[in-house]
């Protein structure tokens, strides 16, 4: 009595082992690669919560291993890194892949939306399943956006000692852009656009080979550019870049349906929260650079009228260039402006 026979005990142990095996076998590890330094605002507000929430929602079944700081590839190569399966989820910024995703750089066009949340909503409408950017650029490139949002509107920041009284003072300066439509905006100011990733700005500014950049102030803080920056604009919309964390379609299709649902749900939830978090972070960063002695200017009424006219020319020029190459330039500008109108704050 009370003694467990040997055979049933063995059978029980075997059953327990077998029950445990499927859970072990089903464990899924995904590699997430990005190009930002650890501690970057996107890292803190998007990536860390994403990894944590996915692990919690799947009860540890899905582990996301994070490779920051271009460990798996340059920011400019993230699409290729993801397509090749080196990473399962990649930090894919269409502006850095403008050869493969020209239409998605529409967000770089200046003067289209007033708030980040409005811009985010417009972008989500265009990248939803079956929408124009999903069908023409993400799917053909074999990726699916899980998290997608816009950085706050980029401002013109200068490391050059030249005083920035008005925007025409930027003429002749070398200004970093992510490439694409922002090149045209910088040319509209009479300056020379230099295409480079954000991780290269510090070195170029400190050597004096770059006079300034189009960038959000939170990136100024994240990339430790504040000690180099002497002046910058406030309240302008020089366009911005769309940031996506996109999963390789082959990986996505191989995942169990419940894991796909969880990834999609957590990604969408973080995408929806992004604009408010980034707007707040931008205000905090502006306060910090101001306290650090950076001279911030709000362009005057004359500048504003000139800018509006220049921005309209940039939009037309950009759309015409794409149309000429058989891409839907005019169509995507109209679609983005319409979606921004629908999402306009009341």
């Amino acid at each position, binding site marked *: 009595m009370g003694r467990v026979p040997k055979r049933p005990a063995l059978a029980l142990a075997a059953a327990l082992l077998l029950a445990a095996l499927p859970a072990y076998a089903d464990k899924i590890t995904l590699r997430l690669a990005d190009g930002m330094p650890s501690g970057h605002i996107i890292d803190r507000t998007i990536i860390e919560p994403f990894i944590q929430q996915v692990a919690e929602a799947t009860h540890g079944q899905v582990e996301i291993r994070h490779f920051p700081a271009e460990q798996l590839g340059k920011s400019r190569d993230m699409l290729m890194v993801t397509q090749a399966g080196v990473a399962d989820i990649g930090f894919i910024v269409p502006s850095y892949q*403008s*050869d*493969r995703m*020209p239409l998605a*750089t529409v967000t770089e066009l200046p003067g289209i939306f007033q708030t980040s949340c409005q811009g985010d909503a417009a972008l989500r409408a265009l990248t939803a399943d079956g929408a124009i950017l999903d069908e023409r650029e993400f799917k053909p490139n074999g990726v699916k956006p899980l998290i997608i949002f816009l950085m706050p509107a980029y401002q013109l920041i200068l490391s050059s000692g030249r005083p920035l009284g008005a925007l025409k003072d930027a*003429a*002749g300066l*070398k200004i970093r*852009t992510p*490439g*694409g*439509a922002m*090149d*045209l905006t*910088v*040319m509209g100011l009479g300056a*020379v*656009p*230099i*295409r*480079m990733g954000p991780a290269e700005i510090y070195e170029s500014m400190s050597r004096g080979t770059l006079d300034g950049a189009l960038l959000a102030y939170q990136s100024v803080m994240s990339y430790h550019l504040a000690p180099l920056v002497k002046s910058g604009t406030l309240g302008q919309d020089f366009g911005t870049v769309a940031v996506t964390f996109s999963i390789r379609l082959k990986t996505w299709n191989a995942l169990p349906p419940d894991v796909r649902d969880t990834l999609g749900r957590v990604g969408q939830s973080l995408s929806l929260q992004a604009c408010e978090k980034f707007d707040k972070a931008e205000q905090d960063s502006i306060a910090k650079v101001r306290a650090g002695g950076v001279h911030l200017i709000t362009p005057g009424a004359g500048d504003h009228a000139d800018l509006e006219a220049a921005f309209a020319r940039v939009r037309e020029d950009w759309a015409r*260039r794409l149309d000429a*190459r*058989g891409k839907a330039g005019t169509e995507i500008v109209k679609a983005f402006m319409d979606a921004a109108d629908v999402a306009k704050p009341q």
Partner: protein
Amino acid sequence: MSGVIAAIGKAEALLAAIASIVLFAVMAIVASDVAMRYVFNHPFGWSYDLVSLYFTLVLFYFCLSRAFSGHAHVGVDILHYYVSARTRRVFALLTCIISTPLFATIAAVTLERAVDAYARHDIIEGAIEWPTWAYIALAPLGAGLLTLRLLTDAVAHAIALGGGPELIPLPPLARSDEGLEGASFE
């Protein structure tokens, strides 16, 4: 066989000469850009992209095969001091056999990418619309030539080991007389 080796040598010399001209062009462009920027307040908008997208790749890939055949690459030759000339030739043959698939893969993958980019008319959006196939194609050109060099060297070493003529000399030993004589790469 010696004709093939000579032809590859000429191709390497041609690419290395182009790379030398490009190196001078980089210096001239950067110097002119600095002058235009600080004297005329009108820097070039194309210089950074031209140098970083195209010229840097020319400098790397066009010198790849010439650097190998000229023994200008990094090589660990500690064991070479303690073995016979025949064993050194076996080492050289193994180096070629191991390296050939690697550079052949690089050449094949980048060629596929270049053809794809050309077919899609991929360009980098911006002030100047740079075609991407043109700089991607530099990689298969350089890696492809190195693959040919490795293959012919492997065959030449095998012929020498089989008792045939020494079509290519052994890599010189560092700090030896032959090494010092051979240390005049370009």
